C-alpha cells in the first residue's frame, strides 16, 4: 500500500528552461505534473493527513533531488497548486474563530438564512454548525437606504465598543457586512480602517471587497466564509511556499484562473473548487487539441468513489455565481460544476418493498467497496464492475490506493444481495446495479443540460478521474451522445489543467439600472467599468502581472425576474454598445429559455470586469508517431458479461501499447494504472495523434 505510480517516463534531454509544476491535492492522491522544456512527467503520491503540504513538499523534493541544477534561483520551478484546503475546512466546519460586525437589527442573518429547512420530509432535522456563533456577532448603529443615501451615520463609539469586545475575545478574523454597502461602501471602509489600527494582526474581510452585490444573506455568508478561511489558508500557503524553492507560486481558483499567494490568502473564498476547476481546464485543453477547435462543446465526467462531477462546457469554462458548497450559498464566480451523488462506492441495497436500489449511501474511501478487502461488506458499483469483468483485479482504480482488487469478495457481496432479492443470479444482479447507477447519472446529466437549455446529444463526453471512462459508453448511449474523448492520462487531468490555467482577476459591482437609465446615462456605465477595470488591474499588479486583456460582462434580467443572465458587454462603453449588450441579453435569453420578451423592461443588475493574463502554452506533446497497422495486438483476453446469459471473451490492451492510428473494436478494455476504459459492445476507439481515445458508435457512418 502507498507506493507511488510513475505513469509516464521522462522524455527528451534536459534543458534549462524553468520547469512548470502542477500539483493537485485530492482526497486520496496528490497528483504531480512536471513540464520541462522537452517533456511531461507525471507522478502520484498518497495524500498525507492531516497536512497535505507534507506530500506536496515530498513530491517536489523527490523530483528536485533528481534535478539538482533546478535548485538555483533562476532555474527554480514555477509551481501551480490546486488545493482542497478551503473545501475541507468548509465541509468539516473547521475554520478560524471569526467575529461579524453588521448593521443594527441584523446580527441574526446567518441564523435566518433564507428560512428554508434542509429536508422537506424529516420530522426532526439538524443544520450544520454556524460559521460564526451567537456571541461573536456584533451590531453597530448605521443605516444606508436602497438609494445609497446615509440614513443613520456610522456610530464610531459603537464601533470602538465592539472592537474593545473583540480584542478581549481572542478572535482570529473579522468580517464586516453592512446593508447596501455595495451602493455606499464608506461605512464598511471606516470600520476596516479602525480595525487595521487597533487589531493590526487580525485579517479583516469587508463585504464590499469580497462580494459587492445585493442579497444580504448570500453576501454575508460569502464574506464570513472568506474571513473564516483566511487564517488557516494563509498559514498553509505561506508554510508551503517557504518550504519549496520556486520562481513563482500560483494557486488555482474556483473560476478556472490562478492567483498569487497574496491573492489566495486574502480571498480564500475563491479557492473552494480549486481542484475540480483544474480538471475542467485540462479537459477543455485536451478537447481543443483533439477536436481541432477553439470552442469544443464537451460534457466532463469526473467519476470518483462517492460522487461524480459534471461540467457542461460550450467552448469555454462555464461560470456560475449560484453555488452551494457544504450548505453555504457562496456567490463568487466559479466554474459551474454539478456534483451527482453517485460514484464507484455507491452502495447497492434491498428496499422495504424488496426491490434493488443503488445509493445514495456510499462506502466512501474507507472502508471502500467490498473488493478492497478493508472491511466493506455491502456490494458497490465497483464490486459489480469487477464481477462483470469490466475491471481487472491487478489494474485497480486510482482511488484504490495501489491495492489489487479481490474478486472473491466482490462476488460474495453481490451474491448475497442477489439472494436477498429472491434468489437472483450474481451476474444479473451486478448488471442491474450498474444499470441503476448509470440511470442515476444519466438523470443528473439531463437535468444539468436542461438547466442551461441544451440537448446533451450535441456534446462530446469527456470522462476523466478513476471511473469515468468505465461508464462513458453506457452513459453516452443513454444520452444519444455520439462522441467520447478519453484523455491520455485521465487520472491526472486536474494537475495537467493547472499548467494551463489563465491568471485572472474579477472585479464586480451591483449597479441596478433599467435599460432606460443605461441608455440615458452611458457615462455612468462607462465610469463604473473604468473603476472596475482599475480594481482588476490593481489586483493583477499585486501579483506582479502586467500583461493582460480585459473582458466586461453584465448580469441582466427582465424586469420582474429575480435571476440574471451574464452577457458580454462590449467596450468602450457607448450608446451603441449598451444597445448591443441589451441585444446580447435577449439572444441569450432566447437560447437558454426559448423565448424573449422585448416588450418588457430590462434591468442591468451587476457589472463585472475580468482581467486575464495569457495562459502558458499547452503541455500536450507533439503528435506521437503513428502505428504501422490499425489493429493493435491485444495484451490479453478476459471474460466479461454484458448479458446474464453468457460471458464473452474480450480483448484487453495496455494503454501504453497503443499508438496513433490504432483502432480498438468493442467490447474491449483499455487499461492504465489509474484508469480503465470500457469500449462498449456497440463502440470503437480510435487512438489519435495525441494518444487520446476517440470513441464513436460502431453504427456511425
Amino acid at each position, binding site marked *: 500500500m502507498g507506493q507511488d505510480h510513475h505513469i509516464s517516463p521522462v522524455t527528451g534531454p534536459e534543458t534549462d528552461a524553468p520547469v512548470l509544476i502542477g500539483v493537485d491535492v485530492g482526497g486520496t492522491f496528490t497528483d504531480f505534473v512536471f513540464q520541462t522544456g522537452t517533456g511531461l512527467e507525471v507522478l502520484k503520491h498518497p495524500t498525507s493527513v492531516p497536512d497535505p503540504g507534507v506530500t506536496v513538499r515530498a513530491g517536489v523534493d523527490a523530483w528536485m533531488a533528481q534535478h539538482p541544477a533546478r535548485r538555483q534561483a533562476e532555474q527554480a520551478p514555477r509551481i501551480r497548486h490546486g488545493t482542497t484546503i478551503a473545501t475541507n475546512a468548509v465541509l468539516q466546519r473547521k475554520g478560524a474563530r471569526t467575529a461579524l460586525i453588521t448593521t443594527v*437589527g*441584523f*446580527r*441574526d442573518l446567518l*441564523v*435566518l438564512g*433564507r*428560512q*428554508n*429547512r434542509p429536508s*422537506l*420530509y424529516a*420530522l*426532526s*432535522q*439538524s*443544520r450544520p454548525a454556524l460559521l460564526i456563533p451567537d456571541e461573536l456577532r456584533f451590531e453597530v448603529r448605521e443605516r444606508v*437606504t*436602497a438609494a445609497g443615501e446615509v440614513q443613520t451615520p456610522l456610530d464610531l463609539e459603537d464601533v470602538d465598543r465592539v472592537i474593545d469586545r473583540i480584542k478581549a475575545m481572542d478572535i482570529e478574523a473579522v468580517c464586516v457586512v453592512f*446593508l*447596501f454597502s455595495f451602493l455606499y461602501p464608506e461605512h464598511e471602509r471606516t470600520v476596516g480602517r479602525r480595525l487595521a489600527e487597533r487589531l493590526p494582526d487580525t485579517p479583516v474581510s469587508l463585504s464590499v471587497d469580497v462580494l459587492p452585490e*445585493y*442579497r*444580504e444573506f*448570500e453576501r454575508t455568508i460569502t464574506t464570513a466564509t472568506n474571513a473564516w478561511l483566511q487564517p488557516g489558508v494563509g498559514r498553509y500557503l505561506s508554510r508551503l511556499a517557504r518550504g519549496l524553492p520556486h520562481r513563482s507560486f500560483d494557486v488555482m481558483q474556483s473560476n478556472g484562473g490562478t492567483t498569487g499567494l497574496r491573492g489566495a490568502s486574502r480571498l480564500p473564498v475563491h479557492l473552494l473548487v480549486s481542484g475540480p476547476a483544474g480538471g475542467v481546464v485540462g479537459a477543455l485543453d485536451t478537447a481543443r487539441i483533439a477536436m481541432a477547435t477553439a470552442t469544443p462543446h464537451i460534457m466532463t465526467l469526473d467519476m470518483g468513489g462517492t460522487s461524480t462531477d459534471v461540467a457542461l462546457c460550450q467552448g469555454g469554462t462555464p461560470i456560475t455565481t449560484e453555488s452551494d458548497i457544504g450548505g453555504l450559498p457562496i456567490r463568487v464566480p466559479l466554474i459551474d460544476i454539478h456534483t451527482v451523488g453517485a460514484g464507484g462506492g455507491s452502495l447497492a441495497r434491498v*428496499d*422495504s*418493498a*424488496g*426491490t*434493488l*436500489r*443503488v445509493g*445514495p449511501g456510499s462506502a466512501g474511501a474507507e472502508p471502500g467497496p467490498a473488493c478492497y478487502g478493508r472491511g466493506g461488506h455491502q456490494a458497490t458499483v465497483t464490486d459489480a464492475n469487477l464481477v462483470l469483468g469490466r475491471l481487472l483485479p491487478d489494474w485497480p482504480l486510482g482511488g484504490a490506493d495501489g491495492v489489487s482488487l479481490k474478486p472473491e469478495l466482490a462476488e460474495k457481496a453481490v451474491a448475497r444481495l442477489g439472494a436477498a*432479492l*429472491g*434468489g*437472483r443470479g450474481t451476474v*444479473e444482479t451486478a*448488471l*442491474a446495479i450498474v*444499470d*441503476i447507477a448509470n*440511470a*442515476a447519472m*444519466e*438523470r443528473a446529466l*439531463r*437535468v444539468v443540460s*436542461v*438547466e442551461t*437549455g441544451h440537448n446533451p446529444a450535441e456534446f462530446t463526453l469527456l470522462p476523466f478521474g478513476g471511473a469515468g471512462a468505465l461508464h462513458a459508453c453506457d452513459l453516452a448511449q443513454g444520452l444519444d451522445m455520439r462522441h467520447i474523448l478519453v484523455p491520455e492520462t485521465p487520472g491526472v487531468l486536474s494537475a495537467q489543467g493547472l499548467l494551463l490555467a489563465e491568471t485572472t482577476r474579477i472585479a464586480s459591482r451591483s449597479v441596478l439600472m433599467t435599460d432606460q437609465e443605461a441608455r440615458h446615462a452611458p457615462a455612468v456605465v462607462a465610469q463604473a467599468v473604468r473603476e472596475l477595470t482599475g480594481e482588476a488591474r490593481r489586483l493583477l499588479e499585486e501579483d506582479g502581472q502586467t500583461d493582460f486583456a480585459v473582458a466586461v460582462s453584465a448580469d441582466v434580467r427582465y424586469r*420582474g*425576474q*429575480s435571476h440574471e443572465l451574464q452577457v458580454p458587454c462590449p467596450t468602450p462603453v457607448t450608446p451603441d454598445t449598451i444597445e448591443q449588450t441589451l441585444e446580447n441579453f435577449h439572444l441569450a435569453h432566447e437560447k437558454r*429559455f*426559448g*423565448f424573449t*420578451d422585448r416588450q*418588457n423592461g430590462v434591468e442591468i443588475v451587476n457589472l463585472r470586469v475580468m482581467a486575464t493574463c495569457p495562459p502558458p502554452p499547452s503541455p500536450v506533446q507533439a503528435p506521437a508517431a503513428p502505428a504501422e497497422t490499425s489493429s493493435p495486438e491485444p495484451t490479453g483476453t478476459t471474460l466479461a458479461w454484458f448479458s446474464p446469459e453468457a460471458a464473452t471473451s474480450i480483448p484487453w490492451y495496455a494503454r501504453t501499447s497503443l499508438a496513433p492510428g490504432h483502432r480498438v473494436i468493442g467490447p474491449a478494455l483499455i487499461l492504465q494504472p489509474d484508469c480503465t476504459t470500457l469500449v462498449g459492445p456497440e463502440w470503437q476507439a480510435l487512438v489519435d495523434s495525441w494518444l487520446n481515445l476517440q470513441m464513436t458508435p460502431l453504427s456511425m457512418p
Partner: protein
Amino acid sequence: MSPIGDLHLDVWRHRLSGVAEEMGETLRRTGFSPNIKERLDYSCAVFDPEGEMVAQAAHIPAHLGAMPASVQTVLPLFDDWRDGDLVIVNDPFKGGNHLPDITMVSPVCTGPADRPDFFVASRAHHADVGGMSPGSMPLSTEIHQEGIIIPPVRLYRQGHLNRDLQALVLRNVRTPEERRGDINAQVAAHRVGTRRLVALCDRHGLEEVRRSAGLLMDRSEATVRAAIRSWPDGRWTFEDFLEWNGADNERGETELIKLRVALEVRDDNLHLDFSGTAPTFAGSLNAVIAITMSASYYAVLCLLEEGTAVNSGCFRPFRFTAPPGTVVNALSPSAVAGGNVETSQRIVDLVLGAFAQAMPDRLPAASQGTMNNLTVGGTLTDGTPWSYYETMAGGMGGGPDRPGLDAVHVHMTNTRNTPVEAIELTWPVQVETCAVRHGSGGAGRFAGGHGIVRAYRLLRECTATMLSERRAQPPWGLGGGHPGATGRNELQRADGQTVHLPGKFSVRCRPGDVLRIATPGGGGWGMEPSEPKS
C-alpha cells in the same frame, strides 16, 4: 421475495422522476416571479391515462396529493384530447386548491394517433390572480372575492393558443405581464415533459414504459403498506383549533374553530375520519378536500423511510371520511384562500397529534403551525400599483431525539424569504430588523425552535393584510414539553401609539408606521431534566 420481480425497476424511477425534474427545472429557469424562481412554489408531475400519478417533482408538500385530484377532475371533462391541447384550471372546486395556484394539464400522445398515452401536469403559485386584495390572499367571506376563477378550459387547442381566453385572464389580474411570463414558463415545462416522454417511448416502447410506471406505483404502495403494518393497530382521536377573528379586526375577538380526526390503523390500511370538524364558515380558512388529503399524505410520508418514490401508489392504503360542508371539505362558494396555507398546517398538526398517541416515541411536538402570510400593497407616486407578499419562518417543534430548528418554514411549505435588500430596492418598505425571537421555543428535554421577529417601516400609504395562525392557541408541547410562544402582530403608528393586531387583519398604514411580526416558537418535547416528574 418481492412480488415485483424487475431487478431494473429503479432505472425507471430515475427515468420518470427525471422527466418531472426536467419540467420543474424548466419552469424555474423560465419563470418570471420571485414566487417561482426564488421561493420555488411549484410542482410538476407525470400521469398515466387513468390519472394515476407516476412521478412527481415537488418542492412544496402542499402540492403532494393535490395534483392527482386535479388531473382526475379534469380528465373526465374532456373526451376529445388532441396532441397539443393544454388545459388550465385554478377553480378550487374543480381540481384546484386555492386561486393563486394555477394548474395545467396536457396530454402526451406518443404515437401517430391523438390518443393520450400519458398526461403531464404543473402547478405554480402565481403572485396575483385579482380579487379584493393585492396578492390574492384576502380576508374574504366567499370565493368570488378572492380572484378570477378559471374552471378547466383549454388554453391551447392542438398547439394553438386561445388568445381570447388569455386576454380575459390577464385583464383580471393586477400584474398581467408577470402572469403572462409565468404562464409561458409553465407551458415551456409541459413542452419539455412531453418531448422527454415521447423520446422514452420511442426508445423503449410504450408498453415497457407503461408497465414500469405501473410497477413503480405498486412498489411505492408496498413500501407504504410495509410501514403501516409495522405501526400498532388501533384508533386514536385528536383535536386542534383554527383561529378566526373576522374580517373586522377592530373587534379582535378570536373564535376557535374545531378540527377533529380519528386515526385508525388496521393491518396495512389507514383510515382518517374528520367527522366532528366544524362546518365551513364565512372566512377564508376553509379547505377543499384535496388540501386535507395532501396534508395527511405529507404527515404520513414523514414517517416513511427516506427515498420513497412519491406517486399514486403511496396513496392507495388511505381512506378518508370528511363530511362535505366542513372546514376540511369545503363546497362552493366558500372562501378558501387561506385553506391551502394555514388550514393545511393545522391538518398536519392534527394528523401528527393523532399519530403521537399511537407512537409517542417517534413524533415531535407541534411546530409553528402557520406560514404568517403578509401582503402589503398600495400605489406608487406615478399611480402604478405594487404588492409585496411574504411568508415567514418560525420555530420547529422539539423531537424525540433533538431540539427543533430555529427560524425555518415547517411542514407544508419551504419557500425562501425575499432578501431585505431586494425588498427595499423594489418596494417602498424598509426592514428595521430581522432577528431570532429568543425565548419563544417551548422548553423541554428537547426544546422547540425559536420563531423570528421582522419589523417593516412603511414608507408610503398602503394596506397590510395578514393571514396568520397560532396567535391565540400556542403550538403544543409533547410528553411534558412546554408549548411554544404564540405569535404577535403589532402596528406602531408613526405618532408613537402601538396597536395590537389579531391573527387576521387588514389595516391601512401611513408613512412611518412600523409593522412588527413575531412568529410562534415550536413546542418542546419531553420533560426538562430539572423539572420534577409528576
